[in-house]
């Protein structure tokens, strides 16, 4: 390897290594068409090709690989949810994440730094105790910790009792982690393309042909494609795409804003989140502080950044980490979140027989990427809904069987 590197360094050409095959012409027919080449879409394609031997697959992407919410999320991985359905689902995803770099032979920069959620009220302490009990019962490492333990974990945190909302306790989640979000999509796309999957960027699905309750073809800006099965994995545009297949969804789109500071020396190890002051903060391996979690107060399909959110996120971040008052901001951005009424995803069957949903990813999509790839691929290959995602079916809203995770999402809504 060092010689290869030396040779590369002395070369005058610097040949670029292609991560995935460039798109060719669209074929007339694919067994499986996946709409959306983000983490989820490529993960489904990867699992279909590697574990189910289904390679006549096209991943259609309106823009470029991993350019939507895969690029915009704040890369938090955790499983400390509240419901049995939620915890067992995200727990499997965290397990898959821990082995993802080996699975791909591609570094996704997984860092198991743990996640700390802060309680500033008696009600929050009570709900954290509940979550910790549920998590421990399900084999997820969560515990309620006191002020002293918090101060030891995060020495720079403002533990003053004179602050506006003094910290009372914390929910410590040792399984919490972060990873390079782009690398997750790249790794999946590379693995899928190496096995024969076609990735078509700049290919927008304009219409979906449905006859007698079955999808027959999708119309794109590059021509019509017949297909055996269609999967939609387009977080942020789920309602728009599902509508083309005549499927109404219980989703409202809200922009979620985040921002990042200039780099600092490493001083913050875990991910710190406070649902009460509406902010979460972590330091990336590059040293930047990612400050996130501000949802706009009304639905919008626009990813502009606002001064209002910058002000409120900064104020909240400074309350937790006063030294951030000196920080200069590098970037501020927004991603469109598909908010469902119960803050859980919508996965699996739809009213159209061969059209599968991977939608409603609100603020919890990145952490679920590997398990979505595994379960949706299994659904496509076997036509049977895996037990672990059965509770997240679209039909649950008609049966009034929602899975309430509103309290366990870190972002403010």
């Amino acid at each position, binding site marked *: 390897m060092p010689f290869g590197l030396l040779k590369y360094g002395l070369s005058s050409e610097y040949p670029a290594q292609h991560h995935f095959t460039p798109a060719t012409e669209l074929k007339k027919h694919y067994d499986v068409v996946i709409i959306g080449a983000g983490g989820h879409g490529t993960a489904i394609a990867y699992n279909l090709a590697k574990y189910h031997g289904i390679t006549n697959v096209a991943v259609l992407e309106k823009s470029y690989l991993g350019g939507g919410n895969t690029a915009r999320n704040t890369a938090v991985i955790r499983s400390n949810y509240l419901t049995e359905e939620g915890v067992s689902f995200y727990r499997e995803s965290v397990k898959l994440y821990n082995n993802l770099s080996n699975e791909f032979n591609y570094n996704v920069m997984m860092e198991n730094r743990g996640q700390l959620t802060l309680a500033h009220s008696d009600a929050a302490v009570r709900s954290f105790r509940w979550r910790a009990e549920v998590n421990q019962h399900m084999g997820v490492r969560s515990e309620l910790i006191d002020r002293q333990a918090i101060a030891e974990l995060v020495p720079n945190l403002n533990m003053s009792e004179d602050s506006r909302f003094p910290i009372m306790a914390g929910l410590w989640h040792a399984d919490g982690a972060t990873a390079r979000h782009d690398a997750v999509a790249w790794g999946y796309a590379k693995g899928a393309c190496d096995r024969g999957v076609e990735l078509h960027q700049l290919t927008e699905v304009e219409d979906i042909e449905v006859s007698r309750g079955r999808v027959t073809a999708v119309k794109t800006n590059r021509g019509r494609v017949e297909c055996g099965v269609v999967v939609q994995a387009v977080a942020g545009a789920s*309602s728009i795409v599902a509508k083309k297949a005549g499927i109404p969804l219980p989703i*409202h789109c809200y922009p979620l804003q985040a921002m990042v500071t200039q780099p600092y020396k490493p001083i913050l190890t875990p991910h710190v989140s406070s649902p009460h002051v509406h902010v979460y903060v972590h330091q990336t391996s590059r040293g930047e502080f990612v400050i996130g979690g501000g949802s706009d107060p009304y639905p919008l399909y626009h990813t502009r950044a606002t001064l209002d959110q910058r002000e409120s996120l900064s104020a909240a971040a400074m309350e937790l980490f006063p030294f951030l008052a000196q920080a200069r901001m590098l970037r501020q951005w927004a991603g469109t979140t598909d908010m469902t009424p119960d803050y859980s995803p919508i996965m699996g069957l739809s009213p159209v027989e061969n059209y599968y949903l991977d939608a409603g990813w609100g603020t919890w999509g990145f952490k679920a990427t590997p398990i979505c790839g595994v379960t949706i691929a299994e659904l496509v290959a076997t036509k049977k809904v895996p037990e672990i995602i059965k509770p997240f079916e679209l039909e649950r809203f008609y049966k009034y069987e929602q899975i309430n995770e509103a309290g366990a999402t870190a972002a403010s809504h």
Partner: protein
Amino acid sequence: MKLLTCPLNGQRNISEFTYGGEYHPMPDPETASPRQWAEYVFFHDNEAGVVIEWWCHTASSFWFLAERNTITDRVIRTFEASEIFQNRIDFAEPTNGEKK
């Protein structure tokens, strides 16, 4: 700060308002099936374009409607609910669980 015009209180900061959801005609509670109720309560058009939606001026608890473009974030107009709701609705008095 973005401004919104309340039909009662005039132009105010948008932080004084609460978003109240898409406007949809309510199905008849006496005849609607559970499925229709689920659709009315949970499902949304989530239109990328011009929508009609409920807003409330929080300080005065005044509910009104707005026409807004969800792509450009421009509010086209705001108007009183009386533009749509012109007839008084008299709900039937409860009759000890018996149906009318």
